[in-house]
């Protein structure tokens, strides 16, 4: 099934190119923040797809690597603000793990801006939409990600 045109490697400058962005959102703050953005009708690009996880600390670095391997151009992880984690300390674990992962990705040649961690509360619908718009713009500017991609999936 052909769902999105992101696999057809359109060059960034053509304008038709739409990067594929995966957003991991914790259930208690950021996923609820995305819902708040929705209730307030604040739009952000449709090429951002959200995956709900109980806490940002549930996100295994492997999930992010897998996303890049399968063709994602950017990955963003959103959790509760420091100090507000529903599970008290989950977001601190996430923050440390992502720091390590992101520096490894950097080393592998994936631009630093392709990955991001943001803290967005359930009330911050406006922040959710603004963050997503801004992130999508950044990824648009960087164009298609070619590193880490599993070429066997591409045919």
């Amino acid at each position: 099934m052909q769902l999105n045109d992101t696999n057809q490697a359109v060059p960034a400058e053509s304008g038709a190119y739409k990067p594929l962005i995966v957003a991991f959102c914790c259930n208690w703050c950021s996923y609820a923040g995305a819902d708040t953005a929705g209730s307030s009708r604040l739009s952000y690009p449709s090429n951002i797809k959200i995956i709900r996880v109980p806490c940002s600390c549930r996100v295994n670095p492997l999930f992010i690597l897998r996303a890049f391997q399968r063709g994602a151009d950017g990955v963003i992880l959103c959790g509760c603000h420091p100090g507000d984690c529903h599970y008290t300390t989950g977001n601190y674990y996430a923050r440390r793990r992502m720091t390590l992962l992101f520096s490894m990705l950097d080393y592998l040649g994936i631009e630093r801006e392709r990955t991001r961690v943001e803290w967005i509360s359930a009330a911050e619908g406006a922040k959710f939409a603004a963050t997503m718009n801004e992130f999508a713009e950044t990824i648009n500017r960087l164009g298609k990600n070619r590193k880490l991609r599993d070429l066997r999936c591409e045919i």
Partner: protein
Amino acid sequence: MQKIGVFVCWCGSNIAATVDVAAVAEALGKQPGVVYATDYQYMCSASGQNLIKDAIRDYGLTGVVICACSPRMHEATFRKTISSAGLNPYMLEIANIREQCSWIHKDREEATKKAITMGTAAIAKVQLNTPLTQMKSPVTKRALVIGGGIAGMQTALDIADAGFEVDIVEKKPTIGGKMAQLDKTFPTLDCSSCIVTPKMVDTAANEKITIFSYAEVENVTGFIGNFKATIKQKPRYVDAEKCTGCGLCTTKCPSKKSLNEFNMGLNTRTAIYIPFAQAVPLVATIDPDACIKLKTGKCGLCEKVCEAGAIDYAQKEELIEREYGAVVVATGYNQIKPVQYEEYLYNQSRDVVTSLEFERLMSASGPTAGHLQCPSTGKLPRHIVFIQCVGSRGTACREKPYCSKVCCMYTAKHAMLVKDHYPEVECTVFYIDVRTPGKNFDEFYRRAVEQYGVHYIKGMVGKVEQGDGCLKVQASDLLDNRQLHLEADMVVLAAAIEPDPSARKIGTMLTASMDTNDFFSEAHAKLRPVESPTAGVFLSGMCQGPKDIPETVSQASAAASKVIGVLSKDFLLSNPCIAHSDPTLCNGCSQCQNVCAYGAISYEDQMVVDKGVRETRRVAVVNEAICQGCGACTVTCPSGAMDLKGFASNQIMAEVDAICN
């Protein structure tokens, strides 16, 4: 392979207007494993739910995907639906195509494509779902109420009324909160003490209620139905059992210079003190920072005069452990000290007071026995200027962004009370807006203007200066567009309301979320206004946001009814989406135990059969009653033994694959 049914909701036009629901159902119907796909106007309606139930039976479905509103909205509803048709309630996945799709996109084609991708990801996930069962855990039938103001008392009384035990933990030596400090209350102008002190007595007399006054909650662990709290009982240096509250000690104490907190520091009290005559419990407390005996070892006068032999200088702090089924936060508020408002001379002139201080100056139990006097001269003021919104509704860093809500009403009240007793005193109120929504509120304010002749001027005061025997007030009248120079004898600042400074600590302890102003957040702004997002934690009174007494009491009773709902159950069903470890993969490294915030993981020697070999190994075991399902352990586990039910690694990977396909 599962037999999956896909149900696409229109949500009236909420979804159907931007998403081609029929196309979504058609596309998803072609996904592997999907045996039935349809769309319907309102999936959550009775007929929508019946449609799902019928399909489960007719097609022998083993998994269900619903493309509708946020799972935060109706996941519980649909779990019930599928379980009533005989399916395990956790064989459900929801694709959020309303909040995260139709509501945010305008282009129909784009939104439809996205909805299909979201549905595909949900199908990929449900393929890997396994039936889960909720654990039953017993409920401790006692509630903890933190804060003994009107909110805490009302909540406790209502819970006790339903037959359950309640503990109130109050950090001050007496319960009663701010309401005990007020003079009269709007909109009826009845005496505050006359309505609050009987409540305090009722609370203390209720045999189901235990009051821990002069105590604080140190720590709370556990979860709904099973909280464990450590209460720190601060030493009073007085045996509360023996003290009769006669007050003789307070008349003999030679240390008389401590600021009287009950009177907002407008006069002083002795080192051994009873906060006010109607305090509950009516017991003396020694302030260790002021007591000569405790500081130097010399004195001991109170001990000598106490006929009950209640004085105990050796009293120590005590830690008390108690178990609870539910916790209510009722920590209330404070008025900001407007020390940053130098332009109003609050720091420099004793005649510039906050409105809570003014309540004490007007109160019969206050420092002036209810006689209105300028604090500096002791004379009756001729003109009082009231300034509204001091520190509220602003964007500067010294200001709060919100409206403190009660100030418009209590300022009208203050002006009326002044006029009632002293018709000759002029009262001028400077306001930005007068906000009086509430039953009989606008009538009340209009009475102040029309019957009592209080001057209301729209505009702000720019500066208050010390004049010759009076205060000089510079202000602008926005309606007349002119500058005013007034002389006043007193200035009353309606200073902003803020949560108690201990609120954040309590919030962190209970993992209850708070907003950016440190007010507690409700689980849902409209539908669950007295619950915190953390199960088993409820909110009562000003700790959730500014409100007057009628609203505080309504919320307090509402919180109580929620608590009663928990305590009246013998068992609670817990979230089954928790961690579990595969003993054949676990290498016993203890990493998971170290990251678990709940102490839910322990290690056990277990007989493990791995590739035909039987051996005893040290492996991780998750306590299902304690695990909250955050998943921190699953990521830290180096051998991949730890996984999370409902959010398993392969499920999340499957979603990633479906999205990136």
